[in-house]
């Protein structure tokens, strides 16, 4: 099992959720994060004092998947989350050693 962590542009979330669902992904967890990278922030100004907004709003999607699905999930994410503009984000794949569904105690693939 892998934990696929994707940092994406916020307005892509709905498409991602739909695409992954039709791939057979049954759950995912998202959070609002701020990203720093090649895409730069902007400067706001209030009554003559500036302040830099270095970080941009991004969405982090975390998906626990069985090894068999990993490639297809990555592929799908690359297609759906891509605008071709700077700031589209990253995917990181991290190993999961155990997974448990709290409600039933099921483990591993059955837990996802």
């Amino acid at each position, binding site marked *: 099992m892998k934990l696929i962590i994707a940092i994406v542009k916020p307005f892509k979330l709905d498409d991602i959720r739909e695409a992954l669902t039709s791939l057979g992904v049954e759950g995912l967890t998202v959070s609002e994060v*701020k990203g720093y990278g090649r895409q730069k922030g902007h400067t*706001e*100004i209030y009554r003559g004092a500036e*302040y830099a*907004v270095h*970080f941009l709003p991004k969405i982090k999607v975390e998906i626990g998947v069985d090894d068999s699905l990993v490639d297809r999930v990555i592929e799908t994410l690359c297609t759906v989350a891509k605008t071709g503009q700077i700031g589209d984000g990253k995917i990181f794949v991290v190993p999961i050693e155990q997974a448990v569904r709290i409600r039933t105690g099921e483990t591993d693939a059955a837990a996802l």
Partner: protein
Amino acid sequence: MTAFQTGADVFFVLMGAILVFAMHGGFAFLEVGTVQHKNQVNALVKIIVDFAVSTICYFFIGYTVAYGVTFLSNAAILTGQVSAGGAPFAGSGYDLVKFFFLATFAAAIPAIISGGIAERARFWPQVAATVIIVALVYPVFEGMVWGERLGYQAWMTDVFGVPFHDFAGSVVVHTMGGWLALGAVLILGARQGRYNASGRVVGIPPSSIPWLALGTWILCIGWFGFNVMSAQSLSGVSGLVAINSLMAMVGGIIAALITGRNDPGFVHNGALAGLVAICAGSDIVHPIGALVIGAVAGCLFVMMFQIMQNRWKIDDVLGVWPLHGLAGAWGGVAAGLFGLQALGGLGGVSLGAQITGTLTGIAIAMSAGLALYSLLKATIGIRFSPEEEAQGADLTVHKIRANPEADIIGG
């Protein structure tokens, strides 16, 4: 009249002016709560600037167009201390406070439009539209109905036996504002993503119900000044106007609650719809008539807002056309019905005159709205670029968002 009595009239009209001025804050917060977070600052700046621009245009041009009065004499003349022959001003500066009162009405027109075109209209072109509307379009119709201009009311009286009756502006202000806004909204087009590929409406959720409720409360409170102080003198004041405004408001609330199935947006807008509708006949209808007028206005808003949004796919953000345009027109007509003595009213009103007057207002507003915004669109452009719209008016126009501290992480 003694200085005391004119003073009391000044005080009376002043309180009306303050109350209607406060309503502009209401317009601002109603829009703040209804738009998305990224457009809240722009809503605030638009309304306060529209008010300022309107006041100046109305002072130098509009008021003269409507009533033939100019303020280019010295202060002693303006306050009636010294008479200048031709256009005598009353004592205690009564005419000046009356200007204040009527200026807050005039400025309501761009405030109404602002709510319809929110979230995608450019800032300065809208300021330009405000100039033209408040200096010319509105005062022409205002002058026809309230200022004895163009022989309009004389003609009405010839035809119908009585003039067109619009006590506090269901038609002169609200219908006018609502139909001008409809023109603007049509020319401007819907917000990005408002309707999806298959043409279905996509809910763009409001940022904050408490802020829009605050706006509504301020509008409701100020509205009693809008209506009652339209008497413009203490000898003319009538408690009937007050109770009718109250009854129409609560009628609108209950009707919108039920037809709108507890929706907080509808409930609060229902109050406003009732108040819009009662302006015209508030001085002549019976309180129970007012209750009915308000209830019908509340239903009308709930029904027509949904039809407009979901079926006709017109993207009027705050719903100003059904709110001011339709409820206002209903109010203009209803005054001719519920004002009749047969229905417990005070009479002196004609249904024919009311329908004609209302249609005149709609015709002027709709054609002026379409013409003006088409012209602006063709010349300076009226709409944000897609990127600007996506980024939001706050960053685009004001370089700051509504909660700057929260934009900075780790601050």
